[in-house]
């Protein structure tokens, strides 16, 4: 599933590790979410929604998964 997680994280000036600690998950999970390789569970999606104060559907786009790996990595 595509998402705007990286943009939301960067807008707050957070590293993946900081966001991971905010959500009590691993940094690896944040990376897998941002690159579209992993779709979160419902509890994690709600936790993200609460943290960024946005509805789930504005964070996640239910399009077919297409890895959105940032350029230059």
């Amino acid at each position, binding site marked *: 599933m595509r998402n705007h997680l990286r943009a939301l994280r960067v807008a707050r000036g957070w*590293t*993946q590790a900081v966001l991971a600690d905010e959500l009590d*998950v691993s940094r*690896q999970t944040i990376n897998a979410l941002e690159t579209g390789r992993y779709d979160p569970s419902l509890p994690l999606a709600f936790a993200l929604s609460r943290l960024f104060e946005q509805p789930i559907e504005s964070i996640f786009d239910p399009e077919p998964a297409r890895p959105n790996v940032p350029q*230059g*990595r």
Partner: protein
Amino acid sequence: MTSNLDTTRASNGDRTRAKRFMTDFLPAMAAYVVILVVVVLFGGLDGNSPARFVWAVLPIIPLAWVIWAMARHLRRIDELQSRQTYQGLSIGFGAAMLAAVTAGFLGIAGLDMRLGGWVIFVVGMLGWAVGQAVLAGRNG
């Protein structure tokens, strides 16, 4: 586009979970090694005493501790890591079953399979380790 916000350094939570796992796991492995050395030196495994069977299974006690450490770790890790671990375990189980069936057939064909148990163990553990490493590498 990348920035200093894209660092791949572990989070505080990652480090804490890893430290807790090591706190559980390392003493268990140390106990296993100590008991193994004691059994090899004093167990008389190549003798005729019935007590040698008790000596032979003594290393199982610290191994149960290792399994307990793994179980605690599984309760601590997050949803993606749990999924990776279970997938890795599935790969390891499949590899161990293939090794067991192969050893069984080779035994039927007359090959000495006294070390078959160890072969199954090693293949299963390797399958788990390699499978999980590949899965973890994919998710960065």
